[in-house]
């Protein structure tokens, strides 16, 4: 059974997800630059095996480490509700006291994760985890926000979802620190490997994107993948790259919190009256926003 600290963590996450002001204020005090945790993002198309892969990664890592996992699924565009079904692939992990798993709805956020994910990460970091794995929703070409949040981003690709031109396009394939060619037992994996190697693999600043083949459901290729993950972490440890990564995560949070705060305050204005003025051209909203934000940035510069 999960110990009481897990219950406490679960409740904290709920309060942050619900954007409770006092919970957000508490977690703002928790640092993001904790270097004893490795944040691993896992993204890729729906049905590519992300959850199964995450389950395998967690299983291996949890033998000797404390591992947290945040599993994101999309919310309904009609009702705002969600079916959170990633946990199903992780039944084997139930009993391990080193593991904390939480399913999250993206609550309409379009980047692949939820807007509170970095704030949740601050809380996770304060609980002494060695790893946090973040699984995005089944992602399309432009769900790339995970790269701004995770230290190491794994992009899962599977055979037969397109040809070399697909591999050549921009977006999600560009954000990979490591490519995972899952379902590598399927015919077509050689074509996938060749296409990614030719059109998507990058060499930047001393890091060449590894192409790891896995059959997640059988657990094969996982040790080699973890070896690449650890190598990437070593590369991040050099030249202050890890701090840069965490700054990017903080920047994501700035935008999300600003947007939430604006909405929070706008909700208290009689929206109808404001909208009427705006429709009649009686109020220059842009100018007002410009003034307010300029004042804000100046005051932040004094921090």
């Amino acid at each position, binding site marked *: *059974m*999960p110990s*009481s600290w*897990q*219950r406490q963590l*679960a*409740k904290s*996450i*709920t309060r942050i997800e*619900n954007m409770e002001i006092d919970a957000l204020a508490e977690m703002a005090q928790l640092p993001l630059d904790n270097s004893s945790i490795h944040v691993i993002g896992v993204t890729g198309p729906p049905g590519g095996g992300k959850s199964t892969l995450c389950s395998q990664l967690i299983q291996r890592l949890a033998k000797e480490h404390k591992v947290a996992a945040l599993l994101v699924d999309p*919310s*309904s565009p*009609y*009702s*705002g*509700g*969600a*079916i*959170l*079904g990633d*946990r*199903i692939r992780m*039944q084997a992990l*139930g*009993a391990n006291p080193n593991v*904390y*798993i*939480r*399913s999250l*709805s993206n*609550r309409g956020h379009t980047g692949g994760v939820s807007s509170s994910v970095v704030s949740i990460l601050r809380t996770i970091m304060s609980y002494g985890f060695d790893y946090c794995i973040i699984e995005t929703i089944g992602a399309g070409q432009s769900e790339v926000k995970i790269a701004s949040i995770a230290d190491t981003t794994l992009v899962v690709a599977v055979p037969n979802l397109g040809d070399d031109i697909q591999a050549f396009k921009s977006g999600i394939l560009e954000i990979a620190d490591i490519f995972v060619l899952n379902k590598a037992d399927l015919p077509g994996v050689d074509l996938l490997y060749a296409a990614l190697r030719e059109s998507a693999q990058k060499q930047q600043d001393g890091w060449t994107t590894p192409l790891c083949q896995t059959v997640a459901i059988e657990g094969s290729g996982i040790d080699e993948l973890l070896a690449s993950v650890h190598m990437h972490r070593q590369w991040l440890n050099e030249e202050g790259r890890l701090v840069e990564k965490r700054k990017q995560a903080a920047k994501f949070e700035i935008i999300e919190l600003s947007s939430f705060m604006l909405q929070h305050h706008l909700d208290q204005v009689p929206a109808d009256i404001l909208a009427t003025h705006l429709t009649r051209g009686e109020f220059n909203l842009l100018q007002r926003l410009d003034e307010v934000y300029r004042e804000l940035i100046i005051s932040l510069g004094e921090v």
Partner: protein
Amino acid sequence: MPIRVLMAKPGLDGHDRGAKVVARALRDAGMEVVYTGLRQSPEQIVHAAIQEDVNFIGLSCLSGAHNSLFPKVVQLLKSEGAEDIVVFGGGVIPAGDIPGLVDAGIEAVFTPGTSLEEIVAFVKERVNRQNA
């Protein structure tokens, strides 16, 4: 704030269409529903419920094991200090068993033929009562 529900299949019963239908109805009513799959033990269900910080657990059982498994979930929630999580159940449950289940802490039992509206209404009304 979205209501969070865990839909669970305790025991060895392999039929989850009903659980999925209820999960979708709750989703359509704006709730976040975690579904943990087939063949879960009461321990696994309570463990997940605590990590997911759900408000409700919906238990579905078609194999007749409800009299032992459903109360076990309630007991475990209590021993973990999580008795604020509301448990409801459904499946193949004879009418005669329902009072016993309610006594054991299962707040509502929805047998075949119950409308989805009724189940959604139960959850919403229960939340309102909790907040009041």
